[in-house]
């Protein structure tokens, strides 16, 4: 890949309509920088986005892209990658998109381990529908649809991923630009499904999970002697009710992507014949 690719090549000429101060700006910048830094360019990159504020990302980035239906971005991304393993596939979504309507697909995407990265912009609220509880909202978080709080525990995406057999689990924070970019880069470089939950604050509707909150409370695992290849340690961290962590929580270094396991290595857009494949009559003979 060309070394001249700059992250701005991944920017489209559309101006984001996110609220001023939205965490998604930082999340997207980190994604673009990580893509450029890992040697990709817009023509070999495929970005899949879901619905909601996070779903707009495909419009603001310049690459091959699709804006899927609500919650279904992961299977679309897997289909793209299986059909053309030469492409760099990145799926982006929000906490509602990924952990509510798309929770089933999340579990199975983790199991499938297609070599793509999945960046979830987690702001713990529904922003685009103007402030309802999301699956990661706190139990007592008061919103228009949950005036007394959801009164049910939030989804723990990291634990869900680990339990489903994830080979790469990370968490980052949109305003810590450098660390965020590094973490997404590691997800891209991982041979398999690289899952990154990004705290991407909603400045309009969420006054609890704010920049200040994350800045003060997040523990950066890089600053500890944490070993991300230790699955037992990862269990402890993802189930820790008292602290939230930034960095790679788990990486299986032996990970074999779906494409490797299934021997997918060709670009399926190629049909090198104008009619049926040469030995197709064998298919008919089988029915004698």
């Amino acid at each position, binding site marked *: 890949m060309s070394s001249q690719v700059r992250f701005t090549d991944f920017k489209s000429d559309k101006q984001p309509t996110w609220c001023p101060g939205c965490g998604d700006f930082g999340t997207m910048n980190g994604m673009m920088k990580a893509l450029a830094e890992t040697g990709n360019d817009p023509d070999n990159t495929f970005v899949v986005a879901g619905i909601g504020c996070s779903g707009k990302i495909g419009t603001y980035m310049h690459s091959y*892209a*699709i804006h*899927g*239906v609500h919650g279904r971005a992961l299977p679309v*991304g897997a*289909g793209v990658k299986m059909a*053309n393993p030469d492409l760099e596939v990145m799926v982006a979504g929000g906490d509602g998109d990924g952990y509510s309507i798309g929770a089933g697909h999340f579990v199975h995407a983790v199991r499938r381990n297609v070599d793509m990265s999945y960046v979830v912009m987690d702001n713990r609220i529904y922003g685009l529908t103007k402030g309802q509880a999301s699956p990661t909202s706190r139990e007592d978080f008061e919103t228009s649809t949950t005036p007394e709080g959801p009164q049910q525990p939030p989804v723990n995406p990291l634990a869900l991923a680990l339990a489903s057999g994830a080979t790469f689990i990370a968490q980052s924070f949109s305003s810590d630009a450098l660390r965020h970019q590094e973490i997404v880069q590691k997800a891209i470089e991982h041979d398999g499904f690289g899952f990154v939950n990004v705290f991407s604050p909603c400045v309009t509707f969420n006054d609890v999970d704010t920049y200040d909150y994350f800045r003060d409370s997040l523990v950066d695992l890089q600053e500890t002697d944490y070993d991300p290849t230790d699955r037992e340690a990862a269990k402890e961290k993802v189930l820790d009710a008292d602290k939230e962590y930034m960095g790679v929580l788990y990486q299986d270094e032996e990970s074999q992507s779906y494409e490797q396991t299934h021997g*997918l290595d060709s670009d399926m857009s190629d049909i090198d014949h104008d009619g*049926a494949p040469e030995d197709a009559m064998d298919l008919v003979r089988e029915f004698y």
Partner: protein
Amino acid sequence: MPADFNWAIGGEAGDGIDSTGKIFAQALSRAGRHVFTSKDFASRIRGGYTAYKVRTSTEKVRSVVDRLDVLVALTPRTIEENMDELHDGSVIIYDGDRTTMADVDIPENMVDLDVPLKALAEDAGGAIMRNVVALGAACEATSFDIEHLDSSLKKRFGDKGQAIVENNKQAARLGQEYVQENYPDADLDYELETTDNDYVLLNGDEAIGMGAIAAGCKYYAGYPITPATDVMTYLKGRIEHFGGHVVQAEDELAAINLALGAARAGARSMTATSGPGIDLMTETFGLVATSETPLVIVDVMRSGPSTGMPTKQEQGDLNMLLYGGHGEIPRFVLAPTTVNECFWKTVEAFNLAEKYQTPVYLAADLAMAVTEQTFEPEAFDMDAVEIDRGKVVDEDTIEDHQTESGGFKPHEITDDGVSPRAFPGTAGGAHMSTGLEHDEQGRRTEDTEMRVKQVDKRNRKVETAKEREDFSPREFGDPDADNLIVTWGSNEGTLVEALEYLDDDDVDVRILSCPYIFPRADLTEEFEAADQVVVVECNATGQFADVVEHDTLQRVKRINKYDGVQFKADELANDIKETLAGEGQEVEA
């Protein structure tokens, strides 16, 4: 009527009814006889009644009939269920040693062949072969050379080793010999002639899978559902040989989205499901259409709504396929009319999808999907398959479809409504695809003028297709007849056979069988030329009849069957006679 012969094996699900039936059907096909099979099955894995029926003739057979000449009954219920179809001289083969069969009462006008199936199977090497013993007995009852059975036993058990094949051959011979020795005076009138022809025997689901591979389909994602699962089963293990891949998704929502992703990446891509799955896929269907992604979606219809009768026939999804989804969505809806057409319409579906960058629904139905039929191998002539990928641009031609600043226009406004397509990886082609209304570059817009332009552009593809493609119905019967019978889907074969019954009663009809539901041929002239028009379909409300009434502004009569069973030729001929005489359940203006 061809001198046809009807055979069945019935018992409980789990008794190996299907595989035994298929072995016999294959033996007949390899002996140069035409075969038409049908299945009577319940939605359960074990227990309950299930039967595999084989109709065979030296001439082409196209439907089921109400007649059974030889029945292998593994349970008393098998006899009860088929009593109406048994007749004077029907042969019933059963194992009187089986506890449940000990007291069965074979009517005196029928031939009673009590064969110790299990005991003979054990002699040959294992009780599991008792059905094969019955096949040997059936060969004797029909003077059918048992060597034809050998080759299909080899096909069925070859993978398990020569010893297993030999044991099975032996089991069949023990059955044959038992009948010879113990029923030397039995009235076994049947004699199945053989010919030198070689036929292939396959069902609609298999033909769809084969058509997909022939058409260059490389990617299939699906979720198991009766009666569409055989498409996936067929493709798995075969498509890989042609560079393709099959994914069993977590649900139908994932299946269509996986298929959409692969299609966006440039692969010829397909999913198959049945009605309930189509419901789940419908939201994404809108995205497929709006993003102008070529995709083939197969609906093997079964009896609905909701879970309905999953193992029974119906053509009730037509409205769903035509109108399903919010907003207005251009689409193609094709409905193959025979097992062979399942192959060709699948090939055509891929070409239409890519030429017009539109989703294509392929509507098959249970009666066709699980029905095996024999064909000359040339009916699947692979040399006749053509692949047309439509307007794909590459790095050299992409410049003609870029804005001044170099942005690619995947939704370029064109006269024919079809825009250029760039596969990901093509330099200069990076673009956004979305279900949001968009401009020529695929970028979201709410601009009123662009909205109208894009809607018109997408709809224009349908007009273009009408000009360029042939959507004519298939025609049978007397072209000059005053009575016009119109149908779609798997009823064609039954109607063609019903012609002979109608002919016996001097009722002349012209038949139009419509494989194109949308876009479709304009039948106004045909309707105006006819005295009476009758639309035949397997649903309660006459969904296709509604559509053609709307097209032609003319009322039609209707014959609707929705009891879960496909039409039978003689029954349908009677319905037609009654309806034409004004006695049917027609709806008149």
